[in-house]
């Protein structure tokens, strides 16, 4: 039963290890379970072909329920240059966001800090998985501070950024040091219909 599998993660967290994208999918699926109720959640998962959680795209059930509110839809190395604060001001609680490290070092990429998937909780707080010794909730500043720490981030003039081939683009070289992009949230209109006969 998918709800049992989800709560096994909650009950036995030390038995699991995952990256940020999977962690927020666990939370978003738990939110669906608590909203739909157990029976409808099981039917919705079955209709979606089962519960699968992993990195990359939103799988099956989440793909169906998540609405994309805004995004540059532009590769990270071609972003238009809007300040991250502009994105933060339009976030709503429950939004899933991606915080991009625009100049990760090779070590930063290897360590998983090319970016951070997070959930906006309101009041400037976020759920973000993996920040060492990170409190809960965590602020955007804490996540940014970690991603921009020495060794994980480097924007020296001659440093080739690890995020793409257009690292020489002045917008990258001179733009903001990080980026918040692509936010999604559960679409109430769709969620209302899940699992109904």
């Amino acid at each position: 039963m998918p709800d049992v599998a989800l709560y096994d993660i909650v009950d036995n967290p030390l038995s699991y290890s995952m990256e940020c994208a999977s962690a927020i999918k666990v939370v978003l699926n738990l939110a669906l379970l608590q909203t739909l109720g157990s029976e409808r959640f099981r039917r919705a998962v079955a209709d979606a072909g089962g519960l699968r959680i992993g990195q990359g795209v939103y799988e099956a059930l989440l793909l169906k329920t998540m609405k994309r509110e805004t995004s540059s839809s532009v590769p990270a190395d071609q972003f238009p240059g809007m300040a991250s604060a502009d994105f933060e001001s339009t976030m709503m609680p429950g939004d899933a966001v991606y915080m991009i490290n625009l100049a990760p070092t090779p070590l930063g990429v290897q360590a998983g800090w090319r970016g951070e998937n997070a959930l906006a909780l309101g009041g400037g707080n976020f759920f973000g998985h993996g920040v060492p010794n990170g409190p809960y909730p965590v602020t955007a500043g804490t996540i940014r501070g970690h991603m921009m720490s020495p060794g994980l981030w480097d924007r020296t003039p001659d440093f080739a950024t690890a995020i793409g081939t257009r690292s020489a683009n002045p917008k990258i070289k001179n733009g903001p040091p990080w980026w918040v992009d692509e936010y999604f949230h559960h679409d109430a209109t769709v969620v209302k219909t899940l699992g109904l006969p």
Partner: protein
Amino acid sequence: MSSPFAPPTGTTNVTSPRLFRAVAVIDDAALQGAVKASADLVGKNLKGRIGFASSPLSDKQKFNPAYWKQLDAATASGASIRRTSCPTSPSTTSSTTR
């Protein structure tokens, strides 16, 4: 020091399934509240945080059953999740504006 990719050992003890009733009204506010409550459920357990894996599994590890715990619905024990890296943002195809 054990490898961060060591296979899980032993079995986990799973309590009886929690049964939830659907909320009376499913709207944006209900969903936002549910996301916050779920994030609290996972994030506030400071003594028992889910581990962080930053590197992808090799194919050898990925397809090794020792790295997976199969869900046994009959006994409600175990669950499986893959350990992977975080190199890209999620993506979907729909688009609207708020």
